[in-house]
């Protein structure tokens, strides 16, 4: 996203405009007003007497509200303007814009104010892939309202535009002939309503417009409460405090409330393009934020459970018990040109669902939810063995059944070249990536605990434990690359090792599937020069044929990945190593004012001195937002043990004194304290010279 692009949102409605507040989208240009994955305005341009405006400043009042200060003319900011314009916009079921023009002269002025409007009703997927529309457009002007519409059979989407002041409305916009008194002002309210016809609710007004039935929420207060409810952080290192606060605020903005959640929220994947439910992203982010905002995990579990697969559907890669990958609402999904209604093609969310349920109970003691979701959890565990073992070798593997629009790689490293052999060849399908086996192992171990503790089914618990033990044994034999002393990235369709060295090894530590005797070698690799860049662990090791420090999943460093790797290192007792990773990622965060990008370049830290951001369109990204939270948990060694919270800090020296106060959980609220003692410089095997 280039500078000067302003994003505001509420739920899955958002506006992307330039710094004047104007929208001039093309089919391939991702600006506009979007709602339910459809563009509802592709042109929204303000001019006065035929002249475009110039931005003086932009204020983000809230994440759903922005104010633009403008003057007429272009490039003439050095000349004192005789007029200024304030454009204030709030999003919610469309948007509401207050337009005010101030006359700074001693005499009255006449002006023609024009707002051009148009819409292409593009589906988000069409914007991404620049596709042609199949339906037809219609426009009408009546009752002081401009209606822009699009229909394709029964599918109808409309944008309704109106103003509070008299306007001349034509099919391309609104014109106001105004006279402004000396030192006076003129203003109008513009309302843009998005309508999904036949979808149950036909909205006539924007959510936060004047006279709307929704009182405009006091977001300031909502945000203050959100932050007050989270543990308080005190720390000698100011950057840590900045990063922590940024994470909490961004997590608030990323809250997404599905139609069925009665107002409760779960973390969406990223802002603005991924403001929807994603199985994997919502689960990982919920895990990261458990010690801080455990209610996100509860909603994630409930809502994903509501949508759990119930049948076999090849187009959607759905199986009974499978947890969804992604849900979308746009035209292409509606006409089944895309499978996202919802789409299930992901191999990790299902075991991770059980992992989250157990981890949630360990923190909160909420056995009621575990009881409520027994059916869903059992169905998820059943999926692992009955539907995910495509090769019949006891491992989860994936191969899409929707070969047209399904996902090829159904693990978190989902780009085309992410899974390779050392020599760069790509394996065929099915593919059984290693971390999936770790998640399956963990799901079985944790499922067994829940079966014994809550479901009162010791026989099922025993069965799961036996399966887990057998899986661990086989895994440590079949995936271990003898000559490299690490776990292979995957097994291919013939059961042979896909032998590249990758960050997935860290997730294996997190899952606990690694034999104790092998953990040291794995940790050595993670902290060694081929994987550790100085900022964090690279997705793929230097020296592998496909390694590229700016390759999406083949060399970049992902904060989310690293937060789980650090957790894994801690699990096997490598406290200092975990602290070293935390130090690197948190150092990197200081270059982004606390907002970690999805990924940054895998260049050697000593070479670039600063983390080179990988260009992505989404910011903040949920699991990057969650990374500092999980790193805090990891550094403090927070672990629920029975009814207590164990604290065992191992903090990097630079952090100094750190306290995390009022950590919520089954113990009520607890405080954790620590002092930085780990000299991170000693913990990496740096390259010489």
């Amino acid at each position, binding site marked *: 996203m280039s500078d000067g692009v302003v994003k505001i949102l509420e739920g899955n409605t958002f506006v992307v405009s330039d710094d004047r507040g104007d929208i001039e989208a093309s089919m391939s240009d991702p600006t506009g007003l979007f709602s339910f994955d459809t563009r509802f305005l592709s042109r929204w341009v303000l001019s006065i007497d035929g002249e475009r405006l110039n931005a003086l400043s932009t204020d983000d009042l809230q994440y759903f509200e922005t104010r633009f200060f403008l003057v007429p003319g272009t490039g003439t900011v050095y000349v004192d303007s005789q007029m200024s314009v304030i454009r204030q916009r709030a999003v919610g079921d469309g948007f509401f814009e207050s337009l005010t023009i101030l006359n700074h002269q001693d005499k009255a002025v006449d002006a023609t104010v024009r707002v051009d409007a148009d819409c292409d009703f593009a589906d988000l997927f069409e914007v991404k892939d620049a596709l042609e529309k199949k339906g037809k457009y219609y426009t009408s002007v009546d009752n002081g309202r401009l209606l822009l519409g699009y229909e394709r059979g029964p*599918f*109808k989407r409309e944008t309704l535009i109106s103003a509070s002041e008299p306007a001349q409305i034509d099919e391309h916009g609104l014109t106001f002939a105004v006279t402004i008194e000396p030192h006076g002002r003129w203003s109008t309210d513009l309302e843009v309503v998005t309508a999904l016809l036949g979808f149950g609710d036909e909205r006539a007004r924007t959510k936060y417009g004047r006279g709307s039935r929704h009182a405009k929420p006091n977001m300031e207060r909502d945000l203050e409460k959100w932050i007050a409810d989270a543990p308080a952080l005190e720390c000698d290192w100011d950057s840590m405090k900045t990063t922590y606060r940024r994470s909490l605020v961004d997590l608030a903005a990323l809250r997404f409330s599905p*139609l069925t959640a009665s107002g409760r929220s779960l973390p969406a994947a990223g802002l603005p393009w991924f403001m929807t439910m994603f199985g994997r992203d919502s689960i990982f982010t919920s895990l990261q934020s458990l010690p801080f905002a455990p209610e996100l995990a509860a909603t994630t579990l409930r809502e994903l459970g509501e949508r759990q697969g119930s*049948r076999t559907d090849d187009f959607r890669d759905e199986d009974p018990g499978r947890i969804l990958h992604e849900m979308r609402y*746009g035209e292409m999904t509606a006409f*089944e040109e895309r499978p996202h*209604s919802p789409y299930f093609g992901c191999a990790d969310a299902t075991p991770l669902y059980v992992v989250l349920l157990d981890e949630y109970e360990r923190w909160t003691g909420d056995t009621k939810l575990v009881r*409520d979701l027994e059916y869903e959890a059992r169905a998820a565990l059943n999926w692992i063995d009955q539907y995910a073992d495509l090769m019949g070798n006891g491992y989860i593997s994936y191969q899409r059944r929707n070969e047209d629009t399904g996902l090829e790689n159904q693990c978190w490293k989902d780009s085309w070249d992410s899974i390779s052999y050392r020599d760069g060849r790509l394996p065929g399908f099915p593919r059984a990536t290693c971390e999936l086996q770790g998640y399956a192992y963990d799901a079985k171990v944790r499922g067994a605990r829940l079966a014994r503790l809550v479901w009162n089914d010791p026989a099922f618990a025993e069965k799961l434990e036996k399966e887990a033990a057998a899986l661990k044994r086989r895994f440590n034999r079949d995936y271990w690359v003898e000559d490299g002393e690490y776990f292979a990235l995957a097994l291919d369709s013939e059961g042979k090792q896909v032998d590249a060295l990758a960050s997935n090894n860290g997730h294996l530590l997190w899952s606990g599937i690694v034999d104790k005797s092998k953990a040291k070698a794995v940790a050595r690799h993670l902290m060694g020069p081929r994987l550790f860049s100085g900022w964090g662990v690279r997705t793929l090791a230097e020296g592998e044929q496909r390694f590229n420090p700016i390759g999406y999943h083949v060399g970049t460093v992902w904060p989310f990945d690293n937060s789980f790797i650090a957790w894994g290192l801690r699990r096997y007792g490598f406290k200092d190593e975990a602290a070293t990773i935390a130090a690197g990622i948190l150092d990197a965060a200081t270059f982004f004012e606390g907002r970690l990008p999805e990924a940054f370049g895998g260049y050697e830290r000593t070479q670039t001195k600063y983390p080179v951001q990988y260009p992505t369109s989404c910011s903040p990204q949920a699991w990057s937002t969650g990374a500092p939270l999980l790193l805090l948990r990891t550094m403090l060694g927070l672990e629920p043990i029975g009814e207590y919270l164990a604290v065992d800090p191992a903090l990097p020296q630079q952090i100094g004194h750190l306290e995390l106060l009022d950590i919520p959980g089954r113990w009520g609220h607890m405080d954790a304290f620590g002092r930085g003692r780990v000299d991170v410089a000693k913990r990496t095997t740096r390259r010489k010279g």
Partner: protein
Amino acid sequence: MPATKQTGEPSTQGFFDELGAQHQPLLAKTTGTLRFDVTESDNLECWHITITNGDVVVSREVADADTIIRLEKSLFDEIVCGRANAMAAGLRGELALEGSPELVMRFQRLFPALVAGRTS
């Protein structure tokens, strides 16, 4: 674990017979009433469903319901026989909904698997 297993040719009647015959674990946490108003030119047929924690009673009464879904008979038959997907039909605007979408969302998971993968 498929929600309902029909024997022989799938049919709307068969689907609902099957539905009422056994406890539905997918609806175990659900209590409420749902009515499908199925239209075919001037004809209206109703399927009224009472769900009590997974136990389902089906009738043809035109009784009140928490959620009412109005749709065309051809589409209804396709959905109930596993030849069309209800969620996609909803997004296309082919289901007119009154009441809570939650109940429909839950109920649609009981519709059978798509017969030959995708239909459009």
